[in-house]
């Protein structure tokens, strides 16, 4: 059943995605009426799916890649909804919805979940590790969206021509604040998540875990994260430079996430 709910949610998010794309081509007036309720409903189904999973299989099930993808998508969808209600702008949807859709889709079609040994001694720690990192990932992604939006807005202001959808966009500095706050909020979570992960891995696999591709990429991601924060603090990097750096961060994050499928260690199958 949880999988069915998740698939329903995927379809509903798909409606949101189509609307976001239409909006970019300035044609989303009619689809807007169904998109907002569809996404709202999608979030509800999504939530039901996750809760049911936890009830049926226990919390440990939530730390499988499939469920983690699903949870990350839900978190981003929730934050987007919050932003939409607060600022009445749906423009970031064009950047956010492809990811939400992809994550839910990937989660909804995987028939062969990467399993966890349910009896794992560390399952509490791993749950903590996974949830803090999911939050860290979501925030990193949002700050990436923020810096891209900043770049788009900046270009428009400089070109002195405003397409009509830009009229509904928040101000440059507001977008800047979003990105920065997301960075600030996400960094501690990402750090704590990585530390717990390392501690658990050290216990389990000894010092050798450090050379695993997943671990290397995660550390690289953390370093980019730190650089983003540092350049912001010390030099106030915004605009182009910050957007490039954030893009690098995003690519590394995607790789680090994708490395779940490559890594031998990070499958959480007890050795």
């Amino acid at each position, binding site marked *: 059943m949880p999988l069915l709910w998740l698939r329903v949610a995927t379809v509903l998010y798909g409606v949101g995605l189509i609307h976001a794309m239409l909006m970019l081509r300035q044609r989303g007036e009619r689809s807007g009426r169904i998109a907002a309720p569809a996404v709202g409903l999608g979030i509800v189904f999504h939530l039901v799916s996750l809760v049911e999973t936890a009830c049926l299989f226990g919390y440990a099930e939530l730390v499988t890649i499939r469920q983690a993808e699903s949870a990350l998508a839900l978190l981003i969808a929730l934050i987007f909804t919050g932003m939409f209600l607060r600022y009445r702008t749906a423009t970031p949807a064009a950047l956010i919805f492809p990811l939400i859709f992809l994550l839910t889709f990937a989660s909804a079609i995987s028939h062969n979940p990467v399993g966890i040994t349910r009896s794992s001694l560390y399952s509490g720690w791993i749950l903590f590790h996974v949830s803090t990192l999911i939050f860290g990932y979501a925030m990193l992604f949002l700050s990436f969206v923020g810096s891209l939006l900043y770049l788009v807005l900046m270009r428009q202001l400089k070109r002195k021509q405003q397409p009509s959808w830009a009229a509904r966009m928040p*101000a440059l500095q507001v977008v800047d604040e979003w990105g920065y706050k997301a960075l600030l909020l996400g960094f501690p979570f990402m750090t704590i998540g990585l530390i717990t992960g390392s501690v658990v891995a050290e216990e389990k696999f000894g010092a050798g875990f450090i050379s695993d591709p997943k671990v290397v990429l995660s550390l690289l991601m953390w370093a980019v994260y730190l650089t983003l924060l540092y350049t912001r603090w010390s030099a106030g990097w915004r605009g182009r430079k910050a957007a490039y750096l954030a893009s690098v961060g995003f690519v590394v994050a995607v790789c680090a996430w994708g490395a779940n499928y490559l890594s031998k260690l990070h499958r959480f199958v007890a050795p």
Partner: protein
Amino acid sequence: MNYFVLGVNHKTAPVQVRERFAIPESRLPEALGKLTSMDGIEEGMIVSTCNRVEIFARSQNGTCDLQQFVREYFGFQTGEFEPYIFQHEKLEAVKHVFRVASSLDSMVVGESQILGQVKEAYAIARAVGTVNSQLDQLLTRAFAVAKKVRSETTIASNSVSIASVAVDLAEKIFGSLQGKSVYLVGAGKMCELAARHLIAHGASKIYVGNRTFDRAVTLAQKFEGEAIPFERLYDTVPWADIVISSTGAPHAIFRKEHGEKFLHVRKNRPMFFIDIAVPRDIDPALNDLDGIFVYNIDDLQQVVQSHLGDRKKEAVRAEAMVEEEVRKFEARAQTAEVVPTIVSLQQHLETLRQAELDRVRGRLGTLTPEQEIAIETLTRGIINKIMHTPITALKASARDPEATTVIDVVRKLFNLRPQPVEKPPASSGGDAAAQKPAAQADSEAESPELARQTQK
């Protein structure tokens, strides 16, 4: 529907003519009194602004000579003002009032002042009592139409002056202007105007730098700002989020290297440069720097022009809305004329029925409840059958220009009281239905029964 409009506006008359028509607010009550004392004029109001002087009136019998009022009131000679005036009556007058209130007739289409001015004129005329029934409905409707046009089109949503465009842009960059600081380089008039707009939108700190320090001090005092000696210009400009430059310098005073320095000092926080000087004060290359936005007078003008273009497009939609509203208003007004007659016809026949019942009741003796009901049904049935044809005719005539004739015939045939089209019945007495002023007749909330009657 006996509405009339006469006036001069920016389309029909140059300012030297318009100013001769202008009536200051203090003299409006007196002018309104004169207007409504004219033959045939029942209600009237006057809108007098710098772009228009217009007289709205309603007559009882369908004719009124507003030109005569103009001649008498302003003391014009015949032939002196006629080429400059415009006149509308009936539906054309309704449409004109709707268009004026919706700012479709304005010099800058979509500007919001005119609605306020019409509302003021209306308030004065109401206070004096020269607007009280049908003209009141017309204006109330006009305000509703204006609101609808504003909310359902984007006719008023974009700024069309240089200063307000500058504010819009600043808000696009900084979000709220609350707490933002503004640096005026040069103490020109345009600088002052733009600064005033920015302050009105929340900008708090003002710095003024000018080659002549005294002028900087004078201008700074106006805004409770800070005057800064010109030598310290480059050190102090980074303090400001918004810089407005309008010096008479023959070459650019802000070049790219300055911009780089400013951004460094400000840790890349964005800056907005408005260059209203010709020749330009700010090197356009500054705009290439991340975080610096430079708009010169042409850029601002271009935004203004594109907004004006948008307004023109929206105005077409707004005109269609006004047309539709005029049709609705017409239909409603005609129904409103018919409804009181229908109601008094029903009341009249019901009174007759009751009276006849009372008269024969004594002779009938005691009746069983079933018999009571039977008599009730019988008499009501007869009344309804009789009423059916005249009511159908009245309703049909509501959509017809001959409504008044049918109303008169029905009233005569059934010996109903004359229709109270005049001043609304502030006093008591009279039959309740006939007293319903037309204004209420179309409001469902106030008389659901009437509203039901008017439906098919």
